[in-house]
């Protein structure tokens, strides 16, 4: 596939796909299914088993990248997203690689300036063939820089229209959106249009009608139906989309299939074939892949949702497949799991008050807002308060959304509704993400969220035009320097991209790599749980050379440290492992921050034998010159002068004479002042 795309160019490639008359699949297992049902924790070790199987199954593409996986890779999986994308691209030549990009949020959680967006896209162009791009406001100008880069790079751009069912989301509305997309992309020939049913709410007939309406207007479009399974109607909805003329469908391996991800590939194939469609799929390979998944999927049991099962009420609360199970996780961690039914109900009301699409970052805003509101009300008056709010909201909608038609008590209740609004919600209301698709909410919402002076805020801050156009370019050199300071070494271009997306997670990841190496070489069970019993071992090939790590013993925790004895390539090593409590206590040693110029850290581990010089004992409040010796540390009989990085006044001396200090430990703080 990839060879053909490169050789023939996007337009010819898509034309032959269109003319083939076949139905094709995107396997979303590694990314979206993994995100929706398994919190994105799949290891590369397990994914690598699927690569050769997917390569032979006849898929159009495999979604291997993007969405929340990017962040999760850095944060928890400790996978380099570049290495991950490259693994798929290199070893799966028969299938296209696909990413999901969140318009201006790219693979992060904030709006990035255009130069960052372009840089990030360009960096992944070599490894990623299909770029599915959505915007939670369906605000098409937000997609423009991505569209330009992908089209210019000879890859397939797949703009997605965020789909939900509501009175506003009519065929006419979607046709307007598609028209904007087609105009931006210079026609229909070089793109795939995606209908992104991320929550799984479209009824089969609704989907069929929409696909048909779009194809009536744009017969040349290749339409992909992206559909989550949450409401339980996914397979008939897929078939309906096919009847409408959609040619591409998101599926997953049978053994990956749960409730919030995607439909299992083999039942769908059988059904579509029965309906007379020619489906591009090798069933026996698909079966092998599913068996392979069954072999490792139990590694991820603990990442599955607290609640499992279809949830047809998704058609009201509209939580997308990825967010729904993780909301249960958050609710459990926060100790308010029992409030979930009320929160979901609240979200359904919320969707009617402030209208946008519940997908990142919108879904997070809805969730945080309503989890907050319901918790607050529960604290105030238990489930009774919540019931009262819902009744007031019922009366509000019954009264045609007129606040003045309500009693004073109801009005008061509604005006308090958004009083705890987060900055994200406020930014949304001020158009910082882009104009809302169906207009701004009613004034009382602003009054509720911003309190007194709300009118002034709206007048002076609400943006009606493209927010991206107003966002100044990032000063890349400055950011890079900040990164390299934190990292303590020069960064590669790819590392810098990781940093631009997620500064803290990227630096933490790179430091992790430095300490522990490339852990993606470890089998999944070892990655999650280590070696359990003495004698357990793991074989790891590096550069084609086998290595062996065998557990000899795990000691009792003594003095905050457990001694783990491993035989590494037949040689015993003792690893003192600090228990988390002890590590916390140790961190009490103050470290100098390299980026803060006035903080003087110890260059070595040793003993401070003198503060000041032979002639001048220094104390807090003393003036020092730049380069003046502040103290001296003895290590193995050598003297190590510690000099002031600048002229200034000593604010604090953090150690005593003859104190033993660690490398990097904060010795003194100097505040700048003239010589």
């Amino acid at each position: 596939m990839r060879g053909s795309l490169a050789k023939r160019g996007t337009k010819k490639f898509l034309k032959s796909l269109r003319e083939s008359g076949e139905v094709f699949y995107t396997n979303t297992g590694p990314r979206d299914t993994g995100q929706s049902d398994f919190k994105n924790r799949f290891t590369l070790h397990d994914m690598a088993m699927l690569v050769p199987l997917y390569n032979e199954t006849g898929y159009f593409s495999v979604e291997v990248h993007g969405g929340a996986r990017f962040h999760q890779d850095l944060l928890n999986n400790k996978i380099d997203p570049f290495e991950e994308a490259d693994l798929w691209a290199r070893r799966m030549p028969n299938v296209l690689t696909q990413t999901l990009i969140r318009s201006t949020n790219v693979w992060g959680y904030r709006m990035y300036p255009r130069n960052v967006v372009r840089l990030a896209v360009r960096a992944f162009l070599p490894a990623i063939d299909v770029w599915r791009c959505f915007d939670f406001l369906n605000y098409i100008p937000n997609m423009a820089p991505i569209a330009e880069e992908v089209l210019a790079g000879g890859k397939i751009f797949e703009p997605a229209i965020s789909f939900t069912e509501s009175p506003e989301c009519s065929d006419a509305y979607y046709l307007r959106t598609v028209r904007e997309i087609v105009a931006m992309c210079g026609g229909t020939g070089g793109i795939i249009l995606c209908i992104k049913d991320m929550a799984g709410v479209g009824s089969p007939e609704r989907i069929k009608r929409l696909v048909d309406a779009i194809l009536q207007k744009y017969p040349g479009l290749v339409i992909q139906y992206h559909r989550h399974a949450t409401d339980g109607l996914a397979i008939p909805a897929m078939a309906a989309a096919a009847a409408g003329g959609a040619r591409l469908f998101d599926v997953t391996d049978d053994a990956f299939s749960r409730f919030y991800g995607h439909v299992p590939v083999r039942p769908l194939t059988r059904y579509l074939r029965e309906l007379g469609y020619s489906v591009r799929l090798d069933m026996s390979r698909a079966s092998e892949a599913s068996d392979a998944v069954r072999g490792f999927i139990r590694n991820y049991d603990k990442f599955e949702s607290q609640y499992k099962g279809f949830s047809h009420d998704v058609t009201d609360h509209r939580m997308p497949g990825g967010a729904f199970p993780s909301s249960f996780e958050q609710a459990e961690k926060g100790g308010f799991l029992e409030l979930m039914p009320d929160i979901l109900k609240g979200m359904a009301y919320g969707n009617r008050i402030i209208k946008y699409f519940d997908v990142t970052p919108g879904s997070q805003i809805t969730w945080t807002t309503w989890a907050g509101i319901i918790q607050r009300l529960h604290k105030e008056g238990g489930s009774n308060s919540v019931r009262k709010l819902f009744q007031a909201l019922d009366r509000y909608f019954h009264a045609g959304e007129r606040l003045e038609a309500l009693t004073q008590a109801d009005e008061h209740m509604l005006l308090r509704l958004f009083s705890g609004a987060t900055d994200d919600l406020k930014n949304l209301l001020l158009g910082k993400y882009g104009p809302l698709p169906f207009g701004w909410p009613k004034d009382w919402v602003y009054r509720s969220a911003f309190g007194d002076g709300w009118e002034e805020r709206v007048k002076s801050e609400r943006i009606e035009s493209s927010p991206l156009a107003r966002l100044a370019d990032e000063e890349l050199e400055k950011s890079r320097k900040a990164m390299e300071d934190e990292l303590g070494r020069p960064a590669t271009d790819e590392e810098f991209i990781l940093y631009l997306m997620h500064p803290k997670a990227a630096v933490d990841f790179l430091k992790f790599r430095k300490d522990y190496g490339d852990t993606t070489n470890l089998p999944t069970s070892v990655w999650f749980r280590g070696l359990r019993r003495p004698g357990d071992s793991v074989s790891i090939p590096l550069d084609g050379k086998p290595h062996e790590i065998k557990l000899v013993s795990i000691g009792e925790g003594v003095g905050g440290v457990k001694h783990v004895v491993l035989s590494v390539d037949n040689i015993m090593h003792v690893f003192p492992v600090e228990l988390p409590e002890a590590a916390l206590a140790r961190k009490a040693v103050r470290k100098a921050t390299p980026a803060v110029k006035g903080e003087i850290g110890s260059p070595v581990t040793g003993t401070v034998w003198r503060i000041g010089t032979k002639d001048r004992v220094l104390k807090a409040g003393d003036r020092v010159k730049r380069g003046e010796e502040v103290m001296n540390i003895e290590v193995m009989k050598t003297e190590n002068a510690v000099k002031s990085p600048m002229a200034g006044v000593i604010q604090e001396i953090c150690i005593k004479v003859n104190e033993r200090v660690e490398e990097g430990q904060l010795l003194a703080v100097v505040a700048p002042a003239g010589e």
Partner: protein
Amino acid sequence: MTRQGPFRKIFIANRGEIACRAIRPCRELGIRAVVGYSDCDELSLHVKLADEGVRLGPSPASMSYLDIEAVLRAAKDSGCDAIFPGYGFLAENPDFAEAVDREGMVFIGPSARVMRILGDKISARKALSASGVPVTPGLTDVEDADQVIKFGDRVGWPVIIKATAGGGGKGMQKVASPYEVEEKLEAARSVAEKAFGKDTVYVEKFIEGGRHIEFQFLADRYGRVIHLGERECSIQRHHQKLVEEAPSSLLTPEVRKKMGDVVVRAMKDIGYETAGTLEFLVDRAGKFYALEVNTRIQVEHTVTEMISGFDIIRKMYKIAAGERLSLAQEDVFLRGHAIQCRINAEDPKNGFAPSFGRISFLRQISGPFIRTESGIYQGWQVPPFYDSLLAKICSVGKDRKTAIERMRRALREYEIWGVKTTIPLLRRIMDHPDFVKGEIHTGFIEQNIAGLTEYVEAEEEIFKLARFVAEVSAFGRNIHGA
């Protein structure tokens, strides 16, 4: 005390690699080797290799290896008839040599008288000049900064301040201009006081771009002196040698002969006995100046051994036992080229800060034409109390190029984990085009430090993964990815 006939038992008053080295000829000659050890050295390699061990005292050197009383008692109580001091510690202490003699044992080294002359840099300069050895212009009675400034103005800047009782480059201060004199003088005095217990210093003209070349000689008590050629020790940092080789690519046979003759004559004049080294600085014009005489075995003696075929320490034992040096200068044939690298527990990336800790993994090296002298083993804890030298590796080949190739191979194989070492820096030096061409001088490391420290510390990947596995196994869960 002088003695005739072989020793029965030698006390090795040292530790680390040189103690291990010194035990080996004992074993060859059927002499029992006794070592002293401090508390932190109980489990050190020299104790393991020796026939007997005696506790000297607590870990700080001043309370153990430098404690003359403790060393003498240990040697005497264990029935030793001689003491070999190695380098450092008490090796160049004439009071110690005298005390050994008083106790009826043999000090394996020169007499206290010779050590006194040569150990004090000022009297050494006088004695050497008297025998016709050229010395650098110098100022010996330093009282104040003005005097140093006048001297510098006369001979030309920069000058260098050294401790009169010094060694190993400790406390040396290069002074580039009159403005730095005051500060540097004070610093040199402070270190001299700390390191040698004596704050007197002297000043010499600093030879820019100079090359450090030293001659190894052997002398018996019957007046025979021969030299074993030179070593080049220009790869050094702050006067701490890091790479040494023999012969020097700088010397022609004529200059070698001329310098050798000067050395032999001077040592005859002084009445030197046992092995020693005369250090020279050779300037760009090929003029040589004597720096000092090391009245002891030197760290880098190995390269001379590799090209001459003599075991210098074994010779020292024999000379001290009263044997006659049977060799004449004509019997000395120097063949091929040898290079030695010093593996120190230091972090070159962090200003060569000392590094200590447990050696978690050690892959020693071997193979054709490679020699290792080390005092370490896997699992051993590098103590923070002493010199940072862990090991030396030596390669030999028919020419310099072959020796470099073999050294590269050896450094590639050598792995020490748990402490930072000079190994990655040495790998860079062996690859440096100037080093390969032999265009080296004493400022080589400082001049090239940025490039030489531009290596990635390749702690082996599997060891990093093992550390991860250890953590996850200890907790039973992944605290990073869970």
